[in-house]
């Protein structure tokens, strides 16, 4: 089937809200090339489980297609329309299994040396879309906080090297009660500006007590899910016909009910947490990877105004992928400090990709130690301060 053959009844297997959306825009979708449409449908089919910010941007993208003339539409996707597809790809059920199509498309693009052309065409489309439908700026300036190095005694190489050119380094921060000050600060923002999924706290270990106004995710709380996924993988990996692609597909198809999620959870958060493990790489093994990826996905998808992430020590070896009994894995706090330091840089980069970047603020702190770095509109770049201050004061200088 080609996109021009799409009809409303093709979406009958979609979740209710997704179905409504797809049917509403079916005529717009008929104009898209097959090299691109399944990528869009992959978003549409998950619409019921998307955060408000994602829903809005998807609606705007589809609405934009309704406004484009025939000629404009052709121009927008001219590069994508030139991508040649195999008959095998064309025969896939791309309406109901868009994610599988996209995965196979990726392999096809690499094999046929079309990845660079596709990449260029996709970037061109993205640029046009951003120009036509600018993303909304947040109601308050964004604040990102990264707490790194829990339980680490010290470090061999200077911290925050990637971030120092962008902000001020402090080496006499008073660490006492620091985490509590940060949690209180983000809770206060959440209460003052109650926005659904607008204020997050992600912890790589057991979460500290926090205000329920914060959207919270933690590695420790998701331990049963993680174990269930690893158990499933161990069971499936040696079955006949299993390979990396089949295993990925299997993981992608796993639902919350198979993984022991408690009943009554918010379905949006349930799916978000599930995908951290089924789509993330290394999130099942290392808490530091989990935190970095969760922060990346929270920023990309929910676009929160406030994000506090806390990295915890990670397991030393990688062996719990295959070994079922790893309750007492040896921990590596020094390695986790390095991971967290680089992870904080990625958090900042991902935050800066969102609208309002020029007004956003960022703080990274070596937990229970004196070192921190603050970035914000009023903070001089590439500077160092030897002033004594607590974290609440440092935060007040950038927000």
């Amino acid at each position, binding site marked *: 089937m080609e996109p021009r053959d799409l009809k409303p009844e093709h979406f009958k297997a979609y979740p209710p809200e997704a179905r409504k959306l797809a049917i509403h825009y079916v005529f717009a979708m008929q104009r898209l090339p097959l090299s691109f449409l399944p990528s869009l449908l992959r978003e549409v089919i998950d619409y019921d489980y998307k955060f408000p910010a994602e829903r809005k941007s998807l609606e705007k993208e589809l609405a934009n297609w309704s406004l484009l003339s025939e000629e404009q539409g052709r121009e927008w996707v001219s590069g994508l329309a030139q991508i040649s597809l195999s008959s095998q790809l064309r025969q896939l059920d791309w309406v109901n299994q868009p994610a599988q199509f996209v995965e196979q498309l990726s392999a096809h693009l690499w094999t046929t*040396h079309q990845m660079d052309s596709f*990449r260029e065409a996709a970037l061109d489309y993205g640029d046009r879309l951003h120009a036509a439908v600018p993303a909304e700026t947040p109601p308050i300036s964004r604040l990102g906080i990264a707490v790194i190095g829990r339980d680490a005694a010290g470090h061999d190489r200077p911290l925050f090297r990637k971030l120092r050119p962008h902000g001020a380094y402090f080496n006499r921060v008073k660490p006492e009660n620091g985490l509590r000050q940060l949690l209180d600060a983000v809770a206060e923002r959440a209460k003052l500006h109650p926005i659904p999924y607008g204020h997050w706290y992600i912890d790589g270990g057991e979460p500290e007590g926090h205000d329920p106004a914060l959207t919270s995710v933690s590695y420790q709380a998701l331990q049963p899910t993680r174990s269930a996924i690893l158990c499933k993988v161990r069971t499936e990996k040696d079955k006949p016909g299993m390979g*990396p692609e089949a295993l990925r597909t299997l993981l992608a198809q796993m639902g919350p009910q198979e993984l022991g999620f408690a009943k009554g959870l918010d379905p949006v958060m349930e799916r978000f947490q599930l995908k951290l493990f089924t789509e993330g*790489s290394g999130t099942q093994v290392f808490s530091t*990877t989990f935190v970095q990826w969760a922060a990346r996905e929270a920023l990309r998808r929910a676009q929160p105004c406030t994000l506090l992430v806390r990295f915890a020590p*990670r397991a030393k070896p990688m*062996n719990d992928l295959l070994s079922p009994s790893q309750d007492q894995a040896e921990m590596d706090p020094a390695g986790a400090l390095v*991971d967290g330091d*680089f*992870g904080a840089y990625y958090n900042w980069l991902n935050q800066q990709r969102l609208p309002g970047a020029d007004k956003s603020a960022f703080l990274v702190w070596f937990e229970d130690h004196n070192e921190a770095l603050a970035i914000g509109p009023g903070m001089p770049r590439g500077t160092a301060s030897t002033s004594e201050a607590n974290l609440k004061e440092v935060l007040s200088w950038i927000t």
Partner: protein
Amino acid sequence: MALGTALLPSSALARSGSPRAKRKVVVITFGGGARDQETFAPEGQENIPHLMWELLPQSTFFTQVVNRGILGHYVATASLATGVYETINNFASLPPEHPTVFEYFRKDLRRPPSDAWVVAPSNGFNRIGESNNRSYGPGAGARVILPKHLLAAASRGRSDYEHLLRDNYETPFYAPALQGGEFELRQLEDILKLSVDDFKAHARALSSPDELSVYIVRQLMRQVAPSLLWITMHDIDIAHAGAYSLYIDGIQRTDRLCADVWGAIQKEPEYAGKTTLFILPDFGRDSDQDAGGNGFQHHRTGDALSRTTWMLALGEGVREGVVYDRPIDSTDLVPTLGSMLDFSTSLAQGKPIQELV
């Protein structure tokens, strides 16, 4: 790349003094996948003290090696070894579709099977020694040793060696089944003169799969002394698990192991003074700036950083202390080896690197 020609005093030293028939070549792929910013760019140089301060001054260094093919480790290494951008499934146990450098070398120079070897990290590399090209193919290429596979067979599932037995990092849950002529355990003793017990005892003291590979390489150099030896490192690819510290550990370890191999080349009489060593990553990793990726973790975006890497050549016939910034292609390696050792690489797409031949 901030490394410029001015960094190294150029020298016209070294044109080959040994007859081509006696020359040997060792290729190390510095893998899997390392970015400039963690290696030769100024901020990365602290991770590679051996390459930077010991090997680079003796080398001809190419700052831009561009890989225009598929950025998967097996298929990219196969492309390096054939001089053609292969399109085989990266995760299947398949031979390259074009003749490998080992086949060209053996056929043209009439060398025996013992003269071309590959030491590779994971099951997926088992078929890299020879292609399915009709004019070459089975029996015409290199012998392949998978040290991890040997250790698994020797240890019969004992847990002491788990840290050395991870097949690969990109699909850590899954290891392809072995197909084709594998190096068997009993050949440890026959060919490498290494008892299974000694092998196991030594392995217990090692901390990574690449250390195990280099241990096997040294045995191979001592006992067999192949003229064409290809070593594929892979510890760095733990980056796929997302832990930056482990990625850096992998780079630092690979740096040390490359120096170890160079040291062995200097010490082994069969190699000293007649060997050229090439060290190059198979490709880079994704840029921090590309929103489509997740930085160092993967090599999926196909951005310039993930496609561009470096190559260091040193030893016999190579000028010392020279840096070239002009881009060369990953597929240029095989024709260069052909020109250096005097064999034809007729089906390779790349071109001999003039600065080396």
